[in-house]
């Protein structure tokens, strides 16, 4: 297996040692970003209009009754779910983005490339304007459920198309773009019929928000990650091989079509859940994997976890920024992910001399 990965190392002599050294360095990078992420979560937990001290927050986490009901609500029902939701959504989008770029062999792909976000927005809008349930479910989850159902069905439509035209990345991207425009048009049609308040609700839903976080949703995110992660780990080496091109991967014994379909299903689950829970969060699923590629390269053992950690970090910082700009006002996260993500991303591109996408 080492031969396969070391193909980027041209000579055989000493390649084993160099491979080992590089692996160690990459483990170090993973450790560093893990530490930064932990720090970010702590900052997130202690930030808010409530001006709670670190002690108060920690004591309330350990004993919810320590400082009375108001503190319990602030820590356990507002801050903790939001902080955890931020990193989980980040990790899900990062994983989905990383695998999407891998299977489509396209640096511009992100979890929403296949029209998943516009489908989800349309589903949410249907719920907001007509209050129609696409699956029988209680009121508070109406918008979330509709968004999820439409996002997931979009993936199945793409899946169905790939059976007709073959599982190539071109087919998937083109059908995805077609679906994206279809749902964007349907969304506009709905917006046209909406009242002023509904219209603004749709717009703000699409801008994304972490304040809809709840423990139920965190549980759902964990469940989705628990289902998809083993698949990614199991297919790790095949995915690494896939980045050398379909033909090469096939010659190495990888069933290219099968892996693409498997990944499509996993990505759909991750992205649909994420977008249904927090709205359209642009950019995270695109940037996280690119940062990972610049820092640790294509080897899936490092690429996937680093993508997830980097995206989780972006979301966590976004969560902090969204509530600190003006105390008492929560800014939509979709705006912030782009505004803080882009300068960071561009600076990374400028700082890296070699080409990151081959």
């Amino acid at each position, binding site marked *: 297996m080492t031969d396969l990965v070391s193909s980027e190392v041209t000579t055989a002599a000493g390649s084993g040692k160099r491979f080992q050294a590089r692996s160690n360095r990459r483990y170090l990078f993973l450790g560093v970003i893990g530490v930064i992420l932990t720090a970010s979560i702590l900052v997130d937990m202690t930030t*808010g*209009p*409530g*001006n709670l001290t670190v002690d108060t927050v920690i004591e309330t986490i350990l004993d919810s009754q320590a400082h009375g*009901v*108001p503190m319990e*609500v*602030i820590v356990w*029902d*507002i*801050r903790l779910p939001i902080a955890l939701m931020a990193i989980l959504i980040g990790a899900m989008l990062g994983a989905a983005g990383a695998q999407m770029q891998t299977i489509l062999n396209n640096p511009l792909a992100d979890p929403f490339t296949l029209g998943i976000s516009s489908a989800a927005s349309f589903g949410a809008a249907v719920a*907001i304007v007509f*209050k129609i349930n696409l699956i029988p479910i209680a*009121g*508070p989850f*109406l*918008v979330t459920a509709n968004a999820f159902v439409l996002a997931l069905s979009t993936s199945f439509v793409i899946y169905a198309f790939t059976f007709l035209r073959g599982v190539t990345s071109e087919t998937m991207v083109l059908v995805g773009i077609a679906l994206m425009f279809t749902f964007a048009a349907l969304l506009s049609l709905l917006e*046209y*019929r*909406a*009242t*002023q*308040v509904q219209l*603004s*609700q749709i717009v*703000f*839903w699409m801008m994304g*928000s972490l*304040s*809809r976080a*709840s423990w139920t949703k965190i549980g759902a995110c964990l469940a989705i990650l628990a289902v998809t992660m083993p698949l990614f780990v199991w297919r790790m080496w095949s995915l690494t091989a896939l980045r050398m091109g379909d033909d090469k991967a096939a010659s190495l014994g990888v069933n290219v079509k099968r892996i693409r379909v498997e990944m499509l299903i996993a990505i759909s689950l991750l992205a649909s859940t994420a977008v249904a829970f927090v709205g359209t969060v642009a950019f995270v699923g695109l940037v996280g994997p690119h940062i990972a590629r610049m820092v640790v390269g294509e080897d899936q053992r490092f690429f996937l976890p680093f993508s997830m950690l980097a995206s989780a970090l972006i979301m966590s910082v976004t969560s902090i920024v969204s*509530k600190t700009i*003006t*105390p*008492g*006002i*929560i800014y*939509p996260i979709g705006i912030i992910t782009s505004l803080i993500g882009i300068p960071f991303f561009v600076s990374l591109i400028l700082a890296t001399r070699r080409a990151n996408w081959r």
Partner: protein
Amino acid sequence: MVHVRSPFLRVQTIAWQTACIISLGLTLGVAAVAIAEPIEVTDIAGRTVTVEKDVQRVILGEGRMMYSVAVLDREEPFKRIVGWKDDLIQYDPDAFRKFRDAFPGRTDKITNYGSPYSGEFSVESAITQEADLVILDYGNLFNAEESGVLERLDKAGIPAVFIDFRERPLQNTVPSLLLLGKVFDREAEAEEFIDFYMQQMRVVTNRVKDIPTEERPLVFIENAAGWFEEGDCCNTFGGANLGKMVDEAGGANWGTKKFPGYRGEASFEAIIADDPDVIIGTGANWSEARPEVKAVLLGYEAEPEAVQTRLGALADRKGFSSMRAVETKRFYSIYHQFYNSPYHFVALQTFAKWFHPDLFEDVDAAANFKELHDRFLPIEFSGVFWASLE
């Protein structure tokens, strides 16, 4: 409709307040003291909510709720307000400055909760501010439920009530005012204003009911006329809000028969073809939030000449100048914020006078609006709130 009960009586707070009040009473040597009592109220969303009577720390889900709060707490309208959304500051700066100058220093202390349209609401700020009531706009009910805001407020023991002056103003204005009167312990003031409001509304509605259909002029309402720089027409109201007000004032609202919704985008071609008898644009001082607007900047600081200039510019837009309403000078502008305020009887009377000048010759909407200020409001009447093309 979802029914939510707020079971928290906030015993601790009551005990604390009682202790404070008693000690204060002892110090001053006053024997009789009012103690906060919990009351059960039904809000516009049909929810039954337990609220402490005479709330003291209130967060307004829309800044424009001040139009009603000012009627109840005339002497000190800001005394209970600890937080609000910024729509009054953004979209009616004239009224905001009027209130700010009448009560210097009071508005600076109010926490800004952002845009009322965002659907976001920082529960954490509400808890930190120790709010004892959050008043939300009925239009945000779905969002407040979906985002878990109501659930969290309930858990934190902060009651929330919904009021409405926008979605169904003719039905919900009186119950909304009664509700506010109850929770503010200002029932006498609320009833006094409601009496006045009912009289003012009846002046119009009792007379128009006999006007035959063919004598009702076709009226087109242009919502926020001149909002877009290019002068794009034609956002209009359906059979709701100001559209409904047109029908109640003895007109035939163009949008009522065209679409079921609250508001919609009309085809300019259809307006030209139907050539309405009357065109009314809405306007307010949006020039600060949106400097490029071409709207008529109506409000407390408006000047008649500037209003006429802007109204003339709207009438001169391509396609408008040859319409019947412009040629016969039945081209008007009205203060936009009447659409979200218990003062909408002024719009109703003004509309009625425009549609049926002879029938309503004796009604003086301006005098009635001034009476509203003199009798019920802590601010003086000034400015321009409607205009007809000269």
